[in-house]
């Protein structure tokens, strides 16, 4: 296919810009051949084989903050959109591909320096190209007693994941919340350090988040207001022990007391890691009797079936981290609280003392909740999966919301004539404090019709969610405008504020146009 040009940029100007990029960062780090640029296409594109796929015009890979500044200044001069990636592994959300066809990908993978890991105050300072695997290996090699908090895929960037507001499993599971201090290159080419980093010779850049004056870090997350070139993260002191306990309750209506108790434990800090609530019948080996009950019978029949199998109607997994004695006491306390639900059952799960030997670690199918990066999650779609994306609404942490959201989203599937799909059955997670997130799996295939169908279902789910007051925590580039367009309080006041900031910080609109539904002035009309 013909390589696209950046929107509104002539071939001559584009060629001039590429030459200037080469002069700034070195010829070998400016990619403009089809062979090289195709590597930046979205491996899980929901537009596979379709013209709507967003493809880049070129890619540039600077190695330093100074080179990023030069790239940004050249892009400004020619009004070339830049799409920044850290490690480019935002798979399921657009991967390394831009939101606007013809953008130049600003690939920060070469900026992969681990600048500091502090074992006494438990923090790290890293560049965007550092992956969870990289930082984990560094910590292991040095024998440091700190944990990172990886998300499910371990090859992603700490900076990228935190800026996308991703989540993990340990007590540091909210990755944006766990960051402390940033360095950002603005569209003007200026470099800003946030928080205490604004003090020359700052001694607490990674220890005190807020600095003095307005706290601006949030505007650089899920946004297009700057290029983050360094970021600090708080690490978790290696705990003595981990223990996982399971709670099962027998009745459908027990969900209310179950979630109320769970919220009490999470919000009190008794449980500090990510929990999952699941409808037990949705898991386990295929069973014709169960399938029959689920389609045609009552809730009571299902409760009876689950009881016969010795299982609960609802299951909650609780992780505990800390000193062994404290962990045991927390589990005892949790059991005491959940015991007020008649028929509640408890099972002891995995129990570990740290550090684990490599041989012990190798036996654990999914070590991510133990702060160990992995790629196990990529097995989720089965052995021949071609990719996936996620519909991930945030709902209240209440039993009512679990029941209502499950019913409403299943109805969307049924209304669209797809009563099975991948929708039912995934657990409801507490990746973030105070609310649940449901993460629905959508397969991506190399099949135009199937992808169109899935996009239609996805868009309808977004719409119906918004009607119920639920919004998604993150999304694929294909759906950013769909989600942003639902945020209409007071005539889109929040998005008008974003646009005011965008116009002030990036008047030429070169940084990631349309990211999370924030468009620069010159491209706004067509997309608003």
């Amino acid at each position: 296919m013909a390589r696209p040009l950046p929107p509104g940029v002539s071939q001559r100007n584009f060629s001039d810009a590429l030459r200037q990029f080469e002069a700034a960062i070195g010829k070998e780090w400016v990619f403009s051949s089809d062979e090289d640029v195709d590597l930046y296409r979205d491996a899980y594109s929901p537009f596979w084989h379709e013209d709507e796929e967003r493809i880049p015009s070129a890619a540039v890979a600077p190695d330093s903050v100074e080179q990023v500044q030069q790239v940004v200044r050249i892009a400004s001069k020619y009004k070339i959109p830049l799409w920044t990636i850290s490690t480019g592994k935002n798979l399921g959300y657009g991967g390394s591909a831009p939101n606007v066809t013809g953008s130049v990908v600003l690939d920060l993978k070469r900026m992969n320096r681990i600048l500091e890991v502090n074992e006494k105050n438990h923090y790290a300072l890293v560049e965007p190209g550092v992956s969870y695997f990289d930082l984990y290996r560094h910590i292991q090699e040095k024998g440091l007693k700190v944990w990172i908090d990886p998300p499910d895929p371990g090859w992603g960037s700490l900076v990228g994941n935190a800026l996308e507001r991703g989540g993990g499993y340990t007590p540091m599971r909210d990755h944006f919340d766990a960051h402390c201090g940033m360095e950002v290159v603005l569209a003007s080419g200026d470099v800003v350090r946030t928080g205490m980093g604004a003090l020359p010779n700052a001694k607490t850049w990674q220890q005190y988040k807020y600095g003095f004056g307005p706290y601006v870090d949030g505007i650089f997350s899920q946004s297009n207001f700057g290029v983050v070139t360094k970021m600090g993260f708080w690490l978790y002191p290696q705990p003595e022990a981990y223990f996982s306990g399971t709670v099962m309750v027998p009745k459908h209506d027990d969900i209310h007391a179950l979630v109320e108790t769970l919220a009490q434990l999470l919000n009190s800090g008794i449980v500090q890691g990510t929990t999952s609530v699941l409808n037990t019948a949705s898991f386990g080996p295929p069973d014709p009797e169960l399938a029959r009950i689920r389609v045609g019978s009552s809730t009571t029949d299902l409760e009876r079936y689950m009881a016969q199998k010795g299982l609960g109607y609802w299951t909650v997994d609780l992780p505990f981290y800390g000193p062994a004695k404290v962990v045991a006491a927390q589990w005892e306390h949790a059991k005491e609280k959940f015991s007020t639900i008649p028929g509640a059952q408890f099972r002891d799960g995995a129990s570990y003392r740290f550090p684990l030997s490599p041989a012990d670690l190798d036996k654990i199918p999914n070590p991510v909740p133990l702060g160990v990066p992995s790629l196990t999650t990529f097995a989720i779609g089965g052995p021949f999966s071609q990719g996936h994306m996620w519909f991930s609404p945030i709902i209240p942490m209440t039993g009512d919301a679990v029941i209502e959201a499950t019913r409403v989203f299943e109805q969307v599937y049924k209304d669209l004539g797809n009563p099975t799909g991948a929708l039912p059955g995934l657990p409801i997670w507490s990746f973030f404090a105070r609310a649940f997130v449901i993460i629905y799996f959508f397969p991506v295939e190399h099949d135009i019709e199937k992808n169109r169908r899935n996009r239609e279902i996805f868009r309808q789910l977004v719409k119906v969610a918004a009607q119920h007051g639920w919004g998604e925590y993150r999304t694929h580039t294909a759906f950013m405008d769909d989600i942003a367009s639902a945020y209409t309080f007071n005539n889109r006041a929040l998005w008008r504020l974003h646009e005011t900031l965008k116009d002030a910080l990036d008047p030429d609109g070169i940084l990631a146009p349309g990211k999370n539904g924030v468009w620069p002035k010159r491209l706004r009309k067509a997309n608003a």
Partner: protein
Amino acid sequence: MKEKTVLFVLIALALGAWPAAAQTPAPNAAPQVYDKWCTPCHGSGEGKPGTISAAALYKGSKPAVLAERTDLTPTGIRTVVRTGMFVMPRFRKTEVSDTELDAIIAYLTRNASPK
């Protein structure tokens, strides 16, 4: 998401497709670039999606652990790394350079059977 993995492993076991342990030690150690980029998915042990996928695909007719294969070709390896396969994405040159890809190819073809 753990549960899905467990279920998947059970299916692999039921199909008799689970990879056998390495029969012979590798004569050459894997280059660092292989350990960094390939082993997390294609190594031995639990929860390696590439190994699970190969086990399902080849049903025992070929080793599921990539480094145990003797039938891989330079062209085949290059194509998969640069275009992807199933859930495996393409790898950019800022991740795996052409020189590093050559090292991966040399390692994976070290025991290639003569054609």
